Structure formats: C-alpha cells, structure tokens
C-alpha cells in the first residue's frame, strides 16, 4: 500500500516533467525516474528529532542482499558520530587535532551514536561489539548470509548531534543531520570494507533504497536526500515528514524553522534551493550555478539520474556543514568573513565554485560510487576537474576572485597549491595523507593532471573517456585501474606517463628552451616525467615552424641552417601541459625585450613607492 502511495505520488510529481521532456532531445536526458538498480543495502528508518537534547532516536530496518559469491558470517556497521565523543579519543580527533575544515570541535557539545538493540527479523538478538575507536561495530550472525540471500535487521539507535563539526551537527535551531544512522560497510572480496572514521576520509557504501520518516516540530522545514513522500501533522506540535529515495548510497537531511525554498525546473529536473532568509540574495546565483552544473555535466558525462536535486544553504556560523555532497542533496552556503555584510560574494564566485563542485559529486560519488576512503583522488579529483572546466566556461577568466588588481581563477588557485607540493602522489588512502598534502593529492594535482591529459589527448577524446567511464560504472564501485583501462581504451594511447608518473608516482616535469642561437634552438627536459609536446619557432621573416618533441631526450637541438635567423622559440605554446613546473622558462627570445623589461620595472618602482608611503615613509 505504501509503495503504491509512493508510486501515485511519483506519477503526480513527474508526469508534467515527462511530458515536457519529450519536447526536446536536451530534456530527454533529464527524465525524472528512479534508476533501475538492484538494491543491496536498503534502510527503512523512523526517527524523532529532539531539538532540546539535539538527539535523533528511532528504529531502522535494514534489508541487505548478499550479491557476492561468498557467504557473509557477520555484519559491520559504521558509527561515524562516535568520532565526536570528545576531543581526543577517536582516530578522527587524533588525526585532525579536533580541527576540521577550519573549524574547532566544541567539547561542550559532543556527538555520539548508540545502538540500543539489534535483532534479526525473527527476533533473535545479536551481540554487538564496538571495534577500533568505536566508530565501527560488529555483530556475528547465527547463520552466514548465503550468496543471493537477504538479511533483515531491526536496529534501535540513538544519535547525539555535535555542535556543527566535520559536516554534521546543530547550530541553534539549524540541524544538518549527516552520518547519523548505523550504516553497513561494503562486503568485498570476502570481507567487510569498513574503516574507522579518519579525519581526511569520506565514505563508501552500497546502493539501496531509503524510506525515512522524521518526526520533528511542526514549524520546521526540511530538506533531504530523495523525494518528500508525505507530511503528517501529529496534533501534538509535531509533524512527521517521510522521504523516499532509490539507488542511493547514503541519506542525509537538514531542518530549520527558518528555511525558505526556491525551485527551478531544469530540463524536467526539479531543482530545489533551501536557503536562510539572510542569504536570500544568493537565490539566483545558487540556482544559476545549479542549472549550469546539471546541464553541462549532463551533456559531458551522462544524465543526472534522479528526479530531484536539493541544494542546501547553511548559516554563516555553521559553515562546517557547508560544502558537502550527499545523494540528491548538496550543501553550499556563503560565509561573509567580515561578519559585517561587507563580503557578500560580490568579489568572488566561491558560492558558485562550492555549489558546482558538490553537484559534480552527484556524478562522481553518488552515481559512480568510488571508495572515497581508499582512493579519494578519484571522486575529489575528477569532481574538481569538472568544476574547473565549468567555472571557466560559465564565469570566464578570474572567475574565483576579482577584486581590483587581485584577480584569480579557480584553476590558478589549484595550480598554486600544486606548485607547492608537486611530488605528492595522487593515489593513496585518505589517511596516508597529511592535512596539506591531502589537498594536493586529492584535489589540486588531479585537476592539473587531468587537464594536462585533456591537453594531450584533446578535449573531445577526453570527454569521450569521461562519458564512457561514467556510463560503464554507473551505480558501481570502480577503482583507479578501471579508470586507467577505460582511459587507455577510449583514447587509444598508452597513458603510463599519467598513471605511473602522476597518479601512483611522484614524477615531475619542467620543459625549457635553454638556448636560441641564430640558426639553432636547444630545448631541455628536467625531471623524469615525459609527455609529448610541441616547440614553436619563429624566424626573422615572421615565418614559423611547429616541431613535435616526444620529450624522451633530456636535451634536443633543432637546426635551422637553411632558414632565416631565429627570433624566438617556445615549448608548449598553448599551455597544454599544466604539470610543467615553470611555464616562464618555456619561451626564449634571441634578443632581450627591453621595452617589456622597462614596462615591468616601471610597475615595480610604483609598487615600491606605494609601499614606502604605506609604511609611513615619504
């Protein structure tokens, strides 16, 4: 009956969208139906939110199907909130120093999760052992779950939300409820793939269906993964809101009495922006960015497969909850660092960057579900590469910051980070990285490397690689090697330089023109990374030559005895190789450019004079 009600509701909600989607080819990509995916781990959850104690307590029924060919003797749960019991005891706190995303943990408002009862569908109680740092729990089963069999578990639990920290928690009457319920690990290769909650690590889970009913005060507005199936008034000042989602790997929700809602139809997809009144000025910006992301990522990689996308705003003081991805739900938010209303994003596009990045994860996390703990470079790197491409396309140059003479693009910011630690391998488990090299290994270097790969194989072929990879691994858990196989197959090239040199290795590259003589040009490669490139040579009569150079020799000389005198030479003139450590030595003139030299010195002199005045001097 309940399923029928959901079906009827879904038909009502989506029929108009289906009708409009038939009108054009573009909208046909965004047909809002649930993906046809066999669920492995499904959750039916009923909880109540106590806004005074900041507790979420209730019951979950887990339906787990063993899709592997090995029997499963036990179950392992993630209890993520136990990482926030205090400032010191969990692995998360020890690794992070109780700091996450620039925010400190408040030990006066800890978090935690307790399973008060766990039994099988037939009523058999299971013994639960907390393991590692208590962010994992294990229960032996009386009988192993045979391949193809389904296990039903009934779990009573109580979650205490911390003051917003590491993506989850409360701030006053705002609640961001993420990583909040006992959640199964992933059974792989004869064991549970489930790690304690590490500070750099994100998440990994099986696909499943979620039915979540939340009872909370009736003046609260909610936003969540999935579709709102029903809202029921309880006549005691509370309401019960029920959400339904299919083919998702997680479920998160948020609630606040202050939330407002703006919606937009994007080619048949319902986009919802849930915002706080003080951020009403962000409505158009957030929805424009969302539309750009859904449309372009859909065209580049493949259609967004779910019927709704919710973008959630967070309070300035709870920015630790912003900038996070969940299936069908992302959190963004715009913080004014001055607190004076002076910086409302008028000089930057950080709101757009965060929104687009998190929506990118809908493709590269929610649908192509990488193991974020074991290979964080895949989801963060590919998503950030997508973000850089889209920001440049939609918002032009200097799209990140444009404040007078200070201008910067998102790509430039990422390259700056890369140049600080270019020898960081991209591949590695989240906890193999420190705080700073995690940013380089998982974000900056992948962006720079993937754009270099695009420069080498061409934009069209690169998009073909990405769309094939997306299509092939939708609702699966691919690895780096799966990406390698797809990239090499589709590009038709051996990509050892990319995978062995940059992903697994710490190879670096610096190409330079080392000398320009009248009839000779010498080019040099520093570092062991070898990427084919081009050398453009300009002669005195204005003619040019474009030489291919495979980079295999550390030094190579081109001879032009039969041509007019050489005036300049430049390696990689189109700046395709972003991994090149110094572009500034890529080009060389036979004679010094005095005019440009004077122009720069004129600027330097002016800056020094200004600094002298600024320092109180004359």
């Amino acid at each position: 009956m309940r399923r029928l009600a959901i079906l009827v509701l879904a038909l009502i909600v989506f029929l108009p969208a289906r009708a409009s989607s038939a009108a054009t080819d573009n909208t046909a990509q965004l047909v809002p139906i649930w993906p046809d995916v066999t669920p492995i781990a499904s959750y039916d959850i009923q909880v109540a939110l106590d806004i005074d104690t900041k507790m979420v307590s209730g019951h979950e029924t887990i339906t787990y199907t063993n899709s592997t060919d090995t029997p499963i003797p036990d179950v392992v749960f993630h209890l993520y909130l136990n990482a926030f019991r205090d400032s010191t005891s969990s692995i998360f706190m020890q690794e992070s120093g109780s700091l996450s995303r620039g925010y400190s943990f408040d030990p006066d408002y800890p978090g935690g999760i307790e399973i008060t009862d766990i039994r099988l569908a037939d009523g058999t109680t299971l013994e639960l052992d907390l393991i590692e740092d208590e962010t994992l729990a294990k229960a032996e089963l009386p009988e192993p779950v045979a391949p193809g069999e389904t296990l039903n578990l009934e779990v009573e639990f109580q979650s205490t939300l911390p003051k917003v920290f590491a993506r989850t928690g409360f701030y006053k009457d705002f609640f961001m409820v993420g990583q909040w319920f006992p959640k199964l690990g992933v059974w792989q290769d004869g064991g549970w793939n489930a790690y304690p909650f590490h500070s750099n690590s994100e998440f990994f889970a099986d696909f499943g269906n979620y039915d979540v009913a939340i009872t909370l005060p009736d003046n609260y507005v909610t936003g969540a993964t999935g579709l709102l199936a029903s809202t029921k008034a309880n006549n005691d000042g509370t309401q019960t809101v029920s959400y339904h989602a299919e083919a998702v790997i997680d479920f998160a929700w948020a609630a606040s009495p202050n939330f407002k809602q703006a919606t937009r139809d994007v080619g048949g997809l319902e986009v919802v922006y849930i915002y706080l009144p003080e951020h009403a000025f962000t409505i158009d910006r957030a929805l424009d960015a969302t539309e750009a992301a859904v449309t372009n990522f859909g065209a580049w990689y493949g259609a967004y497969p779910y019927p709704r996308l919710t973008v959630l705003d967070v309070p300035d003081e709870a920015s630790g909850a912003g900038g996070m991805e969940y299936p069908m739900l992302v959190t963004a938010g715009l913080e004014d660092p001055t607190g004076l209303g002076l910086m409302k994003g008028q000089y930057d596009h950080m709101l757009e960057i965060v929104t687009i990045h998190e929506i990118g994860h809908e493709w590269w996390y929610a649908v192509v579900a990488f193991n974020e703990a074991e290979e964080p470079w895949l989801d963060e790197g590919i998503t950030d590469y997508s973000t850089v491409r889209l920001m440049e396309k939609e918002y032009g140059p200097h799209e990140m910051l444009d404040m007078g003479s200070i201008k910067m693009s998102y790509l430039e910011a990422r390259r700056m980070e890369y140049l600080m630690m270019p020898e960081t391998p991209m591949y590695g488990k989240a906890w193999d990285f420190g705080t700073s090299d995690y940013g380089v290994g998982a974000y900056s270097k992948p962006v720079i490397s993937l754009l270099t790969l695009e420069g080498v194989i061409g934009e069209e072929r690169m998009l073909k690689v990405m769309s094939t990879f997306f299509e092939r691994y939708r609702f699966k858990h691919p690895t780096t090697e799966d990406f390698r196989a797809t990239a090499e197959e589709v590009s038709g090239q051996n990509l050892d330089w990319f995978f062995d040199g940059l992903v697994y290795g710490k190879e670096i590259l610096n190409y330079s023109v080392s000398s320009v003589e009248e009839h000779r040009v010498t080019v040099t490669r520093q570092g062991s990374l070898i990427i084919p490139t081009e050398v453009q040579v300009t002669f005195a009569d204005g003619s040019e030559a474009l030489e291919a150079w495979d980079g295999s020799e550390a030094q190579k000389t081109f001879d032009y005895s039969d041509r007019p005198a050489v005036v300049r030479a430049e390696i990689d003139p189109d700046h395709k190789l972003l991994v090149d450590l110094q572009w500034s030595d890529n080009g060389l003139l036979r004679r010094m450019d005095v005019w440009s030299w004077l122009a720069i010195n004129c600027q330097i002199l002016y800056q020094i004079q200004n600094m002298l005045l600024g320092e109180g001097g004359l």
Partner: protein
Amino acid sequence: MEAPVKTTSWQAFRNGLTRSIRYPQVILCAYLFNLLTGLLLAVIPALTLVDPAHRTAIQDAANGIDMWLVEEILGSTTTYSILQETASGPPPWLQQASLVVFFILLAVPVLAWLTASFLRGGILLAYVEAPQPFSWQRFFWGCWHWFGAFLLINLLLEIATLLLMSILLVGIVMAASAAGAWINWITLSLLVLIIVPWLAISDYTHLFAVVDQTRNVFKAFGKAFILIFRRPLALAGLFGLSLLMLLLIQAAFRILLPSLPPDWWPLVFVVTQVFIIARLWSRLVRWAGAVDIT
C-alpha cells in the same frame, strides 16, 4: 579679556591646503626622496630581470599582473629545490626571485623609517614657521636637528603599533569566534576609536617637538596625548577631511589606471608618479593643517 578663537577642523584643513601649496619645495623634496628610495630598491629586481627579459613570459608580464607568473615566483623556492636534483639544475634567477621579494619586503620598512625620520623635522619646521619664505638651509637644519629624536620615536611608535595591532587582531579573532561575527561591528568601531587617536598622537608628537623646539620626544608625546582629549572633535574632523581627500585621489586613480595599456610604460610612469605626488600631498596637507590645532 577675550578668549582666543579656536581653529575649526575645516579651517585647519583649508590652511593645510594653502600652506602645503605655498611651499611646493617641500612636496618636491618629499617626492624626490620617495622616488630615489624607490629607484634604489628597484635596481635589484631590475638587474634580476635582465635574464628573464629574454623569456617570452616577460611580454605577458608587461601586459599586467600575470597570475601564472606570480604563482611561479611564489613557488620558486620549492621548484628550485626540486630542480636542483635534476641534471641541469635550476636557473639562477629562480632562486633569486623569492630572495628579491623577501629583500624588498624587509628593506621597505627600514628605508621608510629612515626617510620619514629625516625629512619630517624640516617639513614641520617649514609649516610651523609659515608664512616665512622657504629656506633650504633652514629646511635641512630642521631635518638634521630632529633626525635622531624622530628615529627614536618612530621606532618606539612602530613597535607599539605592532604590539597594539597584534593584541587587537588576537582580540578580534577571539571575540568573533566566541560571540559570533556580529561582534565585528563593535570591534570595527573600537578599532576606529583606537587607530585614529593613535595616528593623531604620532603626528602631534612630531609636531610638538618642532613647535616647542625640543628633542625630548617623550615630553612631546605627553603633550600629544593630552591634546587628543582636549580637542577630539577638531582632530577627528581634520583627519576625516584628510582621509576623504586621500580617498578621492585613490578613486580617481583607480578609475584612470585600468584604461592605460600596461605595456605603454612612459604614460604609465607619468600617471603613477602623479598619483604618488598626490598621495604625498594629501599627507602633507594633514601635517600642515595640524599646526593650527594645538
């Protein structure tokens, strides 16, 4: 007996304008010191840039701030150490790039301190003795006479400013994290209430030393401290008008500069130097006007 009429901030500002224009030699001298000090420091990057001026990247840089180049200069220390392990090694200018930036950042405050301490005595003496005709001999006597005393007081004031600012910054961060960002409105108001009087104390310490013909800067500091309580509104008005003048100059320049082609350096040079002179002038107007509020 009739009470002496107190000069208003507007009158002081107007007198400051008149006085500063009456002695263009002062503006010229201050500008030349600024230009020569700037040139002295600019020689080092100019020499460092001779080798990179053979690079095509110099043409990108000449067309305005090139963020790619800025990044490469900022990352040059890391790149240098990585390339050192390669067969051909890094180019020498790569190591020099960050060293030159570091040197300039270190040298600027020192030279600013020396030039300001030297010139201020002569400049204030000319304004205090207005409307007497300008005398270069008297001007340089003033510069030399107060040089040592002003070196000392400027050093002490600079240290005190650094301490004050550090304490304020820590306080702002702690207050904002404890109470929320709304408290920045209060701290911003408090900052204005602290910084403007602090600037006034600094200005008047120098002025009282010259007016009273003393090199006892501590006595002058005491008088300046008392003055900010005695004539707070007049001082606030004078500083406000000077700030407005500076803001107008800045605004005009910000509008004009982007329309100039950066690589057309002779025009850029003229415009930037006019701006430096205007900026200097706005400061001298404040100093010249301050003579009337004592």
